[in-house]
């Protein structure tokens, strides 16, 4: 089974759209797919699936201890099922670490070919951790300065998260804080210097951090393309992620903006299906194929 995570930092760039499009296309390819709405603060994957009033939700998993199998909902697309997000609960966005860990343990045991996690916006720890947990990491960006800035921050924070978890595992967290606090004394100016210092300090840290970093490889998707020339932003952002943030990134493709998309929400049909928003469908298919191809190449 492959776990996919769709993230990207800024809200409204199309993470849920991409998650849904990937799921739809994989299901149409004949795979068994489960979409999980892990946007705890703003779940809306059910609306993309055309389910107006989901009969189950993650609340039943968290509060009533129901197994995930029992809260799986069928969608109108063969092979595509949904675990709806967290609503009608008093604590929608403050799940404990234990609760989240339990959720991921159970997600790994789901019976499916592909499980797609639709992440929330922002760079909270649990969002970052979920992204890092996935085998297929998809990051969505839009061609404007707001989205790109938040997108880089998201990726940068992923790296910090990896650094911190390596430090915590080895009990070097306090040591590292001290180093940073007195950094001028140690000739440290940037995080890069700090990492170099820590690497020299501990071979164990060096190995562990390398292993952590190998877990981060992202596929970049550019959404909301209104003009053809904007497609170059996707190539440029991917290049910058590789060159400035030293995170291996491949460009999966772009999705053209559909000015009529809003009209398809809130109905009883899946938003992305045959006949609706043809361009977008076509783009999402291309992106899915491109990611599958890149993943296959990496394995092979």
């Amino acid at each position, binding site marked *: 089974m492959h776990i996919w995570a769709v993230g990207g930092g800024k809200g409204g760039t199309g993470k849920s759209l991409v998650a849904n499009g990937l799921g739809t296309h994989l299901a149409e390819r004949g795979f068994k797919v489960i979409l999980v709405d892990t946007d705890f603060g703003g779940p809306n994957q059910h609306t993309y699936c055309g389910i107006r009033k989901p009969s189950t939700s993650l609340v039943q998993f968290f509060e009533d201890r129901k197994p995930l199998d029992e809260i799986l909902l069928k969608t109108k697309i063969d092979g595509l099922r949904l675990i709806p997000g967290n609503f009608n609960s008093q604590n929608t966005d403050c799940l404990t670490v234990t609760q989240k860990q339990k959720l991921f343990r159970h997600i790994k045991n789901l019976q499916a070919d592909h499980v797609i996690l639709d992440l929330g916006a922002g760079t909270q720890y649990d969002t970052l951790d979920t992204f890092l947990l996935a085998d297929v990491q998809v990051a969505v960006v839009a*061609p*404007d*300065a707001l989205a*790109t*800035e938040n997108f*880089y*921050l998201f990726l*940068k924070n992923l790296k910090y998260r990896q650094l911190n978890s390596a430090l915590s595992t080895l009990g070097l967290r306090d040591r590292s804080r001290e180093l940073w606090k007195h950094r001028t004394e140690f000739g440290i100016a*940037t995080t890069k210097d700090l990492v170099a210092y820590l690497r020299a300090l501990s071979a164990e840290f060096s190995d562990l951090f390398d292993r952590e970093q190998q877990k981060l490889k992202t596929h970049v998707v550019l959404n909301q*393309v*209104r*003009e*053809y*020339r*904007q497609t*170059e*932003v996707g*190539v*440029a*952002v991917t*290049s*910058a992620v*590789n*060159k*400035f*943030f030293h995170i291996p990134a491949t460009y999966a493709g772009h999705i*053209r*903006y559909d000015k009529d998309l809003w009209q398809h929400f809130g109905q009883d049909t899946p938003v992305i299906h045959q006949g609706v928003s*043809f*361009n977008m469908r*076509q783009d999402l298919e291309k992106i899915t194929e491109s990611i599958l191809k890149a993943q296959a190449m990496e394995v092979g």
Partner: protein
Amino acid sequence: MRVSDEGHCRQCLEVSADASMDEITQAYHRLKRIYQDDLAPFSAPSMDEFSEEARGEVLNQIETAYRELCGILATTQPQAHPAPPPTLNASLPVDGAALRKIREAEGLTLDFIAAQTHVRQEYLQAFEEERFADLPHAAVNVRGFLSAYVAEMGLPVDAIVRGYMARYQQWQARQRK
């Protein structure tokens, strides 16, 4: 970082192991265009990673990698001549044949575009074949229909329609004589 061998150079220029000299040259010019412009839409000037220094270093790496690749490939592919890079702007103004090519590359059929834009398929075909006589008589309709067609394909409407209409108006002027 010193770019030392062919693999590293290709990685730096973001091209595959089997990319030809032409493709490498295109990638080189594209990357230069990307990293030279600090106001480029992909840039995040608020972040240290995008400092002028960092961009300068990347530009140096790109330059070195390209020079080295040229040297390596000159011995293995002596016939290769770097071609000038096609830029998106250079392909404007877009004529009917180019519109058709783009449409076909996007996998869009004329009847699909006709259904989406409510412009008759005969007109769309006339646009692509630049058969100006078969277009609607009023220039305002020609402009409106063309804009709808160009917008449907997600292309820059203003630039393309301006160029196209200039050719259309020249044709009109010739008709009047």
